[in-house]
């Protein structure tokens, strides 16, 4: 399992209810179920991946976070996970709002557009950056609203969303993000992982 998922699972307490939005082939759900006795549900846009989850005995609904989060009652989960898809929504602000309605806490991870390699790509080459976390060309990327760790940090304070935990990931290395090291982490990290609450 990839490091990002390890960190996410460490943020989740045992015996809780978790909704994994964009659960993919269910690797994280399976792990949470087996290792932490978590009652998991998934929402996944790809029919193929829903099929894979079904074959693993995981409970997944085919759907799109922008339309189908509404079907879950308020506070029906302890946690909701959104891994590296926030930037692909038409209206990320609304999605975050809905995430915080269906669950008490949300774990959101974002590919950091402030990472130095991304900045350098644009600065030196003058073309849209392509990295491990951002592998697509500008003309076929699903990403509509790229943001940086700092953007997300600022967004939370502006919207009065509580940031319980902010973690930065570079390779396999994790570190905490705070107000003092924010600019540095924004430059040196590939991924931001945030545990938020309304």
């Amino acid at each position: 399992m990839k490091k990002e998922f390890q960190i996410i699972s460490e943020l989740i307490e045992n015996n809780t209810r978790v909704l994994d939005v964009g659960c993919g082939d269910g690797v994280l759900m399976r792990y949470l179920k087996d290792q932490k006795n978590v009652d998991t549900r998934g929402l996944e846009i790809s029919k193929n991946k829903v099929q894979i989850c079904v074959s693993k005995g995981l409970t997944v609904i085919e759907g799109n976070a922008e339309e189908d989060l509404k079907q879950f009652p308020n506070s029906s989960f302890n946690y909701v996970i959104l891994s590296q898809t926030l930037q692909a929504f038409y209206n990320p602000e609304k999605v975050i709002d809905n995430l915080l309605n269906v669950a008490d806490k949300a774990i959101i991870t974002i590919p950091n557009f402030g990472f130095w390699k991304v900045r350098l790509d644009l600065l030196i080459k003058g073309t849209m950056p392509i990295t491990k976390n951002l592998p697509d060309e500008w003309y076929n990327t699903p990403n509509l609203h790229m943001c940086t760790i700092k953007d997300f940090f600022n967004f939370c304070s502006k919207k009065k969303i509580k940031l319980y935990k902010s973690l930065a990931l570079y390779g396999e290395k994790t570190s905490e993000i705070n107000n003092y090291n924010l600019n540095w982490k924004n430059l040196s990290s590939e991924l931001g992982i945030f545990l938020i609450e309304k």
Partner: protein
Amino acid sequence: MNNKENIKKIVIKKPLKLDCGETIVDYPLAYETYGKLNEKKDNAILAFHALTGDQFASDINPITKKQGWWSYVIGPSKAIDTNKFFVICANVIGSCMGSFGPGNINPKTNKEFGTDFPVITINDMVNAQYNLLDFFKIDKLHSVVGGSMGGMQVLQFVANFPNKTKTAIPIACTASHSAQNIAFNELGRQSIMADANWKNGNYSYLNSTPDKGLAVARMAAHITYLSKKGLQEKFGRKLQEKDDLNFSFDADFQIESYLRYQGSIFVDRFDANSYLYITRAMDYFDLVKQYNGNLSKAFENSKTKFFIISFTSDWLYPTAENKEIVIALNSAGVEVGFIEIISDKGHDSFLLDVPEFLKTVKNFLEANY
């Protein structure tokens, strides 16, 4: 058609109070089984048939000599693998394949019930079939599964018996029959009633049955089971064994000939009065109303794990209506999965060879066994 003596039947001694107020007792329920019930009796699946189905879900139907209606789904190594599971399928009451229906003899008159048969509901059908669990001494089913009206029975079964099945698969169905569907059913009923042979339902079952009316009802219904795209691709404007238009009202087009054929073979195996009663039961189905406008209340005590399946080209029971069920189950905190299968084959997709659909059913049943 008449060789129905060898059909498996139980006679249900326990009185059943129908929704219409009447009570029935000592009534026959015809069924068929596939696969073997294991020692723990935890591998049983109850399959519910749709409007014109019967208990012969798989293999060759001994009455019609045709493949069972769910032969793609039920059988060794198939989606519902009879090497693993024991499948029970019963003929719904009101129907005409051995279960208690309008074609049965009314002991009071010594003639067929006809329209003296009580109006039955999906709830009545399900309550009657529940007796099969006692008959086979099954405490808990592995699954209840069905498409269309079969899916409605799945929903009603879990609402009535919240913890008598581990899983449930309602396919291409609805929790509340729509105005459009009631309209199509009424069209079918009026077509039967307009046939001079119908005689208010008191036709002679041996001869002069309202075949024309029933055939037209079937033709109209058949169109609703297909999709526009599917029809266009299969038939288009192709002519039936001719090079040019006939300038007459013969079946010039292949689609006309196909529908006429579907109508004609249907009347050989189905009873017009049963068609009236079963379509009525579908129209009356409104699980939302049964639970005072809150569908999630129907499922709030259930530990059953659901998987709901709809099809992209099904305009009779569209994805949106299937999703209403998903939403209600989520609201009740019930475990529910959902997928919309891509298919051009319309509502009939659940009866046909649609590999993604078959795979979903198989994976869900086996991963949860």
